[in-house]
């Protein structure tokens, strides 16, 4: 609906990972935003979204933390807030939902925050944001991706639960597919797009994460994908950082590059892979980049 319109301004909630483990995610977003006429206005004084420690321990806190950010956004006169991290997105969207639908919680949270809610805020995931801009992405895609086959991986938080994330089908989503198609790549059909990556158990229960990652990567490879497209720093971390362990456990030596959706869009625009933070990955993206003749990155081999 917003395709073809002039510059779009949305509030920007980076969350903790985009300044840390997923710096490349933020770098790629900032790199593609101007080309897409997308203005990202960071919410001043934002705080933690509450995932996962708050929402697994205290419901009220899990609403209050993101609700504070929403109040700030309203004060900044923003109608919509974009949270690139799937977990942040999920927390913010859940809080907005709770504010609108649970009057009791809403009033409790208001008294906790000592502030009242302004206008309702639309919370956007990257899948929703970019799928609204597919026409622009298509028009900016200058690098032919040569029928590059990619597997779009949603993970568990991007389109679920359905009453909160209403922009896509919770069981058979298509938004990421529509974005990669616009960028010129070919999404493959595969089974594990909505499986769990292990989330925050990467450190505490590494074996589980490895097992889950194995099934995801195997399915992606079996479907002929050349890269895995993700939209969540946690998923990226589990599938990229843990990939060597995963492959080792599977006896499989085929590395599978894991890209943020924003990185793929950036590549389609012909942006420098380094500007897109591709040099920060653990799985060497060079062979992959070469197949689409996208320039080089200096890759530091993992220890």
């Amino acid at each position, binding site marked *: 609906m917003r395709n073809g319109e002039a510059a779009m301004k949305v509030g920007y909630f980076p969350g903790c990972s985009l300044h840390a483990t997923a710096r490349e995610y933020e770098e790629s977003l900032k790199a593609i935003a101007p080309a897409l006429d997308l203005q990202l206005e960071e919410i001043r004084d934002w705080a933690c979204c509450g995932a996962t420690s708050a929402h697994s321990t205290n419901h009220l806190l899990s609403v209050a933390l993101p609700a504070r950010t929403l109040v700030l956004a309203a004060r900044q006169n923003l109608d919509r807030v974009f949270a690139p991290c799937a977990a942040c997105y999920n927390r913010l969207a859940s809080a907005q939902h709770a504010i609108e639908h649970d009057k009791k919680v809403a009033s409790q949270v208001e008294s906790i925050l000592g502030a009242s809610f302004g206008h309702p805020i639309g919370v956007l995931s990257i899948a929703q944001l970019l799928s609204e801009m597919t026409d622009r992405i298509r028009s900016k895609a200058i690098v032919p991706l040569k029928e590059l086959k990619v597997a779009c991986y949603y993970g568990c938080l991007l389109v679920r639960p*359905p009453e909160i994330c209403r922009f896509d*089908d*919770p*069981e*058979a989503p298509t938004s990421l597919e529509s974005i990669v198609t616009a960028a010129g790549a070919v999404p493959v059909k595969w*089974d594990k797009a*909505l499986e769990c990556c292990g989330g925050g158990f990467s450190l505490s229960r590494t074996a589980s994460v490895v097992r889950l990652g194995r099934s995801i990567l195997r399915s992606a490879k079996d479907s002929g994908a050349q890269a895995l497209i993700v939209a969540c720093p946690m998923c990226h971390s589990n599938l990229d950082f843990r990939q060597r362990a995963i492959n080792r456990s599977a006896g499989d030596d085929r590395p599978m590059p894991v890209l943020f959706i924003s990185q793929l869009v950036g590549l389609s625009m012909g942006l420098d892979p380094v500007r897109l933070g591709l040099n920060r990955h653990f799985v060497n993206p060079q062979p992959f980049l070469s197949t689409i003749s996208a320039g080089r990155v200096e890759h530091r081999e993992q220890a």
Partner: protein
Amino acid sequence: MSRIGVFICHCGENIGRTVDCAQVAQAMGELPGVVHSVDYKYMCSDPGQALIKQAIKEHNLDGVVVGACSPHMHEKTFRKAAAAAGLNPYLCEMANIREHCSWIHEDRAEATEKAKGLVRFIVEKIKYNRPLSNIFIPVNRRALVIGGGIAGIQAALDIADGGREVILVEKESSIGGHMSQLSETFPTLDCSQCILTPRMVEVAQHPRIKLLAYSEVESVDGYIGNFEVKIRQKARSIDVSKCNGCGECTKNCPNKKIPSEFEQGLGFRTAIYVPFPQAVPNIPVLDRDNCALFKGRAKGVKKQVCGKCATVCGRRAIDFDQQDSFITEKVGAIIVATGYQLYWIGKEQESEILHGYGEYGYGTIPDVIDGLQFERLASASGPTGGKILRPSDGKEPKKIVFLQCIGSRDRAKGMEYCSKICCMYVAKHTMLYHHKVHDGKAIVFYMDIRAGGKGYDEFVRRAIEESHALYLRGRVSSLTRNGDTIRVQGVDTLSGEPVSIDADMVVLATAMRPQPGITSLAQKLSVSYDLHGFLNEAHPKLRPVETNTAGIFVAGACQAPRDIPDSVAMASATASKVLGLFSNEQLEREPLIARVDRQTCTGCFHCERVCPYGAVERFEVKDRKGNLIKVIAEVNQGVCQGCGTCQATCPSKSIELDGFTDEQIFAAVNAL
């Protein structure tokens, strides 16, 4: 001035302990219009009633007020007593000074004062009571049964055997319904066709059953005892009077690749066809959408494209120009037995509240089938001749996963109810599978096993213990293609372990839903229905086969998920209700219904809008020369149930509910 008698009951100590009955009687005696007021130990006793009867005669009473217990307890008793003494029973009313007074208060003075107030209400009210007499409505002693499945068949046969005429309407070209598609039936595993077919034949041959197959109810007018039903007989393109069911036409039809509805798409039929060999009536129907001749006509081809069937028909029974025809039948009662359909897991759903199963591929995986399809695979007369073969490649599946509660009991999918039959038929399926594929493995995912019924739990035990079905308690999170198998991802909640199974076939026990079109039928009948379209019974316990519209009954799965024994029991219940209704030429009803003041009614028809029963009709007031003066409301005595919503709604108060008229209520309020 009225001549009212007031009788205050002590109810032993029940009232007398807290209410000074003598004082109440004395106070009532002072009211204008009261000529006799006494108290007595037990008014409902024989001597008590005799007291009333005697007083009616002695004092020439024109109203009797009994201050005693709840009218729900003894109103009938006292009205009968009054009638026995020659007083119109509706001139006798009760004031409740026991449940609503003596039993709930302790202070004697307060309770006595309140009792006076309560009796005074009724004394004032009864001054405006009118003598009323019961209403008699003629009954047309023929019944209409809608739906020719097992419920409809049973109801029709029971009524016809009871000596009354029945019209049985079936929308398909044959009766038999879903039961005719089943292979075997639980819990006895007897062959469905074997027990059903004789009943179908009986219907066809019964002298008092008029079978209208391939027909639908177009409209329903009237009320209990006096319905007028318009029925559309859809064009079969066959002259029924000429066809002898030889089958030459179907044999010669060139279009043989049309998915058969009866075979649930697993087999094929011709364009002119009989749905299954035992069809009743055994007369083909021409599917015009798939007939070459009609396709040609639609394209405007001048030459007749086909017409083979007509050529080979020795009796010249094929009539390509046949049109839908209509007949009108007058009946006194209607039984709705339209049955069910199975839920489909696809993305597109007919109703907004329903949601498909994306995690099961929205029904795009060919070897994921539903229960009815499995029935056809298992049926000896089915597309595979009773062999269990996969639809995709015709291979025998060695591992079948059965999933229960697909849609059912799932609010997120829009059907929070239990479909009731799935536990049983899944058990049956595992047995049939075991009998036919000895080395096959049946795995069942279930939420709970609900096998309440005679021999039901034993049946499920047999499936587990003798047919070695593996029952896993848990849900399946996804079905995905894995090579030529189906990857079933689920969880066994009893062990807490995730389960992953590569199955050759998956059978979904999808939810039972009412037939499409049920809501429009319900609207024609003024029968209410629930969120899911199941028809509502008048009372869940005490009137389970009646509807809120008098004279209309429900049987089988159109009311809620039902299995065969339940459906048949309901059908027989409706038949007995109908035969009871038909046992008299006239129907007697309490006269507490609404009536219209023709002089002041303006004909705005607010009453018509609010009447839950459609009892308000339009009446033309004409002068002596026959010129129309105005169109006003009239209450159909047979339909009105006496709720009085019309009266409260009527702006000019031109409609009155007898027994609770405005004057009566006003008088009571005036006595405050």
